[in-house]
């Protein structure tokens, strides 16, 4: 109308033309030139806490469930788990991603890099690395290790024996670092609250465990394992257990599975029947009866669907704050018993076994020797290491317990590499080209009692 309006308008227009776009300030600012949603760096303490939470999953999550099924301590009674129970596993199902990424090796190495000056902290972080990489290598055999978590985009596979040897070396460094002292993670250590002595013992027990894995290739390992057990975990109070609580995000993974996929997994018939046969007082500690079972603890055999009667974990084991045992005094003792047996100290082996049995409320065994003795040791270890992946290692090494697999199949001796690695790493062979067994588990022809090993195939 009046000349002023167009003039004002053109002034605004021209000004805005230059004001906004020409300046870098337009593109810089709190939510423009940085990520407002996530931190770009991490303090070692925060990264250590996060690592531990995710490592507990690697140790007691899906893989742990799968192995408990295969070892018939538990049974898959629904949906995908019914298939896994019959060993139907493809490269899409279980992968080692969690061992390396997000809360895996990448983060524990990140902690190690940042705590170099605190030797105790460094040693604990190194022991952690040995613990998770041992499980990874036990499961998949040859794994990327020396070139893992580097800038190398196609890490090579290291032989399983070499990985185990490297982990022994790492644990030696860890023990020496811990002994060198330091402030350590203190309360941020969710396992031992930063207690040096407990960690040193756990590291020795872990060394013993790793030596046992190597025994089929290197017979001298039994003696080395025996030595380590002497410095290993010395009482149940020194057990390495996960940290869990009833807070969401901190709950026991078996509990979380139960409330999500309740009836897909139940008690395993083999373990239930074994414990009933030995009137093992721990049976109600392990399981509670299914609601339709009239108070009886009933297990499912491979391929059986959930019917409401099969048992689930006891109230204690199934609670959200149950701390899952990972590396225990019991295991240390039973490794010791087996190592004594393997080094021809049968009397010591029986004494060690009986000390263990007494401590858990079982009657001592008298006069056991030879095959009967080793079988008794392995049976007690199978029961003691309930829900522990180590049972599978023992099975592949000793064929104990001599499990009958689901009809027409055999119990797998390793997992195929997951697609998350194979698809991008040319060093991983296609599933059909991968070995059926790991390097440290050459075919076992017979079970401990000399009979045919039922569950193992080629």
């Amino acid at each position, binding site marked *: 109308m009046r000349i002023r309006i167009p003039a004002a*308008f*053109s002034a605004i*227009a021209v000004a*805005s*033309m230059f004001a*906004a*776009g020409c300046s*870098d300030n*337009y*593109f810089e*600012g709190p*939510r*423009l*030139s940085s990520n*407002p949603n*996530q*931190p*770009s760096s*991490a303090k070692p*303490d*925060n*990264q250590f*806490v*996060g690592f531990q*939470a*995710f490592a507990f999953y690697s140790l007691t999550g*899906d893989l742990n469930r799968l192995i408990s099924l295969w070892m018939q301590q538990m049974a898959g009674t629904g949906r995908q788990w*019914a298939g896994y129970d019959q060993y139907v596993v493809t490269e*899409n199902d279980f*992968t080692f991603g969690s061992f390396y*990424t*997000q*809360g*895996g090796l*990448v983060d524990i190495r990140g902690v190690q890099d940042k705590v170099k000056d605190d030797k105790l902290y460094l040693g604990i972080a190194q022991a952690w690395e040995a613990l998770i990489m041992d499980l990874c290598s036990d499961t998949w055999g040859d794994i990327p290790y020396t070139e893992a978590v580097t800038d190398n*985009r196609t*890490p090579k596979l290291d032989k399983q024996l070499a990985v185990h040897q490297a982990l022994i070396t790492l644990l030696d460094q860890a023990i020496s670092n811990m002994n060198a002292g330091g402030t350590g993670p203190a309360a941020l250590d969710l396992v031992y609250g930063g207690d040096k002595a407990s960690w040193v013992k756990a590291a020795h027990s872990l060394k013993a465990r790793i030596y046992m894995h190597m025994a089929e290739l290197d017979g001298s390992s039994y003696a080395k394992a025996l030595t380590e057990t002497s410095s290993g975990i010395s009482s149940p109070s020194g057990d390495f257990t996960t940290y869990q*609580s009833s*807070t*969401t*995000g*901190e*709950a026991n*993974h078996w509990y979380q*599975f139960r409330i999500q996929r*309740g*009836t897909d997994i139940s008690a395993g018939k083999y373990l239930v029947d074994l414990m009933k046969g030995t009137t093992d007082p721990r049976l109600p500690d392990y399981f509670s009866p299914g*609601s*339709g079972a009239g108070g009886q603890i009933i297990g499912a055999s491979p*391929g059986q669907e959930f019917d*409401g*009667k099969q048992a689930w974990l006891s109230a204690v084991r199934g609670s959200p704050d149950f701390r899952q045992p990972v590396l225990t005094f019991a295991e240390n003792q039973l490794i010791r018993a087996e190592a004594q047996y393997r080094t021809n100290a049968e009397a010591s082996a029986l004494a060690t076994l009986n000390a263990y049995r007494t401590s858990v409320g079982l009657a001592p065994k008298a006069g056991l020797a030879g095959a009967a003795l080793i079988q008794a040791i392995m049976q007690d270890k199978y029961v003691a290491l309930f829900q522990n992946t180590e049972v599978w290692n023992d099975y592949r090494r000793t064929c104990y317990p001599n499990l009958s697999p689901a009809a*027409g199949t*055999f119990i797998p001796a390793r997992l195929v590499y997951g697609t*998350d*690695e194979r698809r*991008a*790493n040319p060093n991983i062979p*296609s*599933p059909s080209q991968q070995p059926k067994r790991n390097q440290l588990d050459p075919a076992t022809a017979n079970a401990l009692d000399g009979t045919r090993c039922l569950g193992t195939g080629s």
Partner: protein
Amino acid sequence: MRSSWRLLGILAISLGSGLPRPQPIHAQNNPNPVTITGRVTNEAGAPLPLASVYIETLGVGAQTAEDGRYTLTVPAARVHGQQVSLGVRAIGFRNTSSLITLTGTSLTKDFTLAANPLRLGEVVVTGSGTSTTVEKLGNTINSVKAEEVTKSNESNIVNALAAKAPGVEVTSQAGDPGAGSSIIIRGLKTIEGDGQPLFVIDGQPIDNSSLKTGDFADASTAISNRAADINPNDIESIEILKGAAASAIYGARAAQGVVLITTKSGRAGATRYSFRSSSGWDDVNKSIPLQRSYGRGQNGSAAAAACPSPGCYPTSSSWGPKLAGGTATYDHWDEAFETGHTFDNVLSVSGGDDRRTFFASLGNTLQNGTIVGDHDKYNRTTARLKATQFFGSKLRVGGNISYMDVRTRYVQKGNNLNGLLLGLARTPPDFNNFPYVVDGLHRSYRYPNPDPADPLADRVYDNPFWVINRDKNTSDVNRAIGNFDVSWDPMSWLNLKYTFGADYSSDQRVEGLPPQSAGDALLGQLWQGTYDNLQIDHNLVATAEKKWSSALNTTFTLGQNLNSRDLRQVLSKGTNYIDPDIFTLNNTVNSNLQAQNYQQLVRVAGYFAQAGIDLWDQLYLTAAVRADQSSTFPKEDRTNYYPKASLAWNVIGSNARPSMGPLSYLKLRGAYGAVGREPAPYQIYDAFSYAAVGLDYGGGSTSPTQNGSGGVVSNLVKGTPTLKPERTGEAELGFDFGLFKQRIDGTFTYYDAKTTDVIFSLPIPVSTGYQNVVSNGGEITNKGLEVSLNARAIESQDIRWEIGVTWARNKNKLVELQGADYVGLTGGFGNSVAVKGQPLGSFYGTDWVRCRYEIADADNVQETTLGSSTDVNALCRSANAPNHALFVDANGFPITDPANRVLGDPNPDWMSGIRNNFTFFRKFQVSSLVDVKQGGVNWNGTRLALQRFGTSNYTAGRADCSAGLSKCVGNEQEFGVTMEKSPGVVGPGKGKKVAVGENWWRAGLGNNFNGPTGQGVESSSYVKLREISVAYTWENRRIRDMIGFNSVDFRVSGRNLHTWSDYTGIDPETNLEGAYGIGRGQDYFNNPQTRSFILTITLNH
């Protein structure tokens, strides 16, 4: 000079702005105003609504009503006996004018307009404040008129675009009220984006996101796409900018094309009122086929079905014996669905004079969906006011504000233990899902006898009626879109346009599962979220036009665009309800357990320049470039250029050569352009996460923070500091033609688009410590043909018949993936992925062992039985079997190939829309729209799962396994021939017939839990009767006088009345994912589609 004025005049009219050229006021010599009345009809005599009648030299105009009538008043002051030209303009018709002499008396002037099917001479909006006329376009822009949008009665404008333009693929996620829909133009060009085009309303970009609620990986409800908030009745026209040349003016936001929406405007003339009311009846068009002959049981026996004591869990499956006659069975599907209703009411008022115009509307859509009860609902109320005012003759100021209140209630669906159909379709036919609550306890078919002592026992799957009645899933959106615009002509050759606008929405979400719900919601679970989305856009354009001679006209445009998009989300989760029926966080014991904040801010500054040269009124050259800077580009490489050029040559139909034989029009055109897609923000940074992550199969979670100590872990994806935008270069060539004076017209376009630097998360070995690194390495091509043909087959006084056909094919290929074999897509069940060398979205997963000559022989060695391996390809060669012949083992069954293979392509081979319009005796209109999609596959995971449970109708003809699963008899099938039909069969079991029943479907590989994914891939081709309608216009002077309306329109229409398809599930138009991802064709207990009957009445004054 005159022609430039004419162009601006045309432009102004088309934008609904009235006419900016009041003449100098002459000495008054006539005391009376002149009223001109009349009626505008087409050649067949049918009234033409929305036609503009104007006297350009006086700057006065009016618009015709629904009955084609207009009233135009020339103020007395301007009447002095002069002769003026009275012109008429209507979309789809040739402009006409007539000379009249203005004296003191009123006039009547009727017009009959000739059809202008090619829209020659019409102004078309080309985006960012630019426009041109149709004959000058060197690239394809498809226009969809208001009538076509509203005729379908779709409440979501995206659905209303289905089958309206070639090369535009619309997929409705489900028939739920408010369900989101996806629109893909000329094929997918991105891996990590949502593949959706940019939506622009009246020059202002708006939000069309589809954001999920909660932590449901597959999205638990059919959440809406935000463009659905727009009231379709407010729309005057939609232009779809398809290729890169057309959309280059939107630069880094236009890779998937642009949908330009122009809302209705007021016109000078008498104030007009319109009231439109429609009532629709909706029901499910296709159900999941379920068997009713076999009851609950297992191993061919009913024993496992017994569940006498509280707390028992009977078998999950329906593999019992054949039900005895008289056994009660239940139609689970029918119980859960009913006829839904949709009520849609719109009131609009518009008018104006020579200086100001306005349009106001108020609309409400109320939909109660097809799930029983009123738990699936959509209630949208919209209000709009659009007004313009002239100041002097050179300055026009406009405002446009709309407000939307959208309240949606959903029912959970899909791959979800709490979804409606997951439990429903698995229920044995002899189980009564009622009552769903017993003594306050949730009763499901998996847990039929709830134990009062254990109220929180697992229900495994929710009872469908629990899902319907007890869950609460709501989205309450309040949204306002407004803009202010100015158009100023400081010089006769110069126009400046400025638009400043904002789109703000606030979405309050609740996703609540009460205690006793299945899965990890046993204690009750609540997600509560607030999403705030604000987009501000500033657009300034200067256009200069000069006609140098009759042979040369030039235009030049300069523009600036500033855009800012700000999203803030807060999500909180609570569990363990105090009161089972109150869905608020403070009603949960564990309140605020998982708080998730997400924010993002993106700023763009774009500058564009465009030049047009018109030669001899037949050759039109346009060239432009847009320079975009975005906050999501790395600082070092902040500016990206998007050029375009196009040429249009009107060979026949120009003044120089009006026609040649029957050929009355021919335009040849060619264009090339480049567009982009900006990276999502913050992908250039490495980061640590403190969010809880679901780690377990099925959704347990672990938080990095433990025992009160803060924790972080590395992100799975590594950032890339040098990330660039995706870039699409596209060339198109085509021609438009008219025959027999445009009685027949058509267009033909070929395009070839190549998208490079496609952003995706490149998988790297997890042993590097990361799963993915953000990468620019993808390349995608889309090549296609688009054809449209229209004929006015009959054009007599009493009968008119128009037929239009569109046909388009697009070939999409992911050419390069930087060395990776495949990557996942955003959204999806996980089996629709991006595989190198295949169309995007191809299904990828496990399949049967087959002959696969396309892979290395060593990769086709299969473990067939315990410990023995077979070299399948060697076997195939020796048997001379065709590629993909099925391998059958010694027992007569196929076996699973453990490696992942390409299973099928969900993209259609071609799509076609066939439209018919009949007009009888001017009063009756009958129209239909048929939508054809040929080729493409869906993954019918629903059927696969139901085969396991024995409820699928597919398992009705089953073997008798009562003697044991190894001793089944009957239903003898030959794999590869009568089941899992294949190009051939090899292997030791070739020719063997085997009994197929529970042994295969439940205990064997005949389902998706044990067997391969590939067995669920099936053709999703369809022919669909999208729309059919019959309309009658009633005009009666006496009634008009009585009720005060000029005309009344009645319309009876049907939508999605029938789908012809071989697909074995629900309607093949379905997707587990809506518009928030580009995983496609996935069917896993998706909620069904609907068909509708609609009655509409429109009153016009």
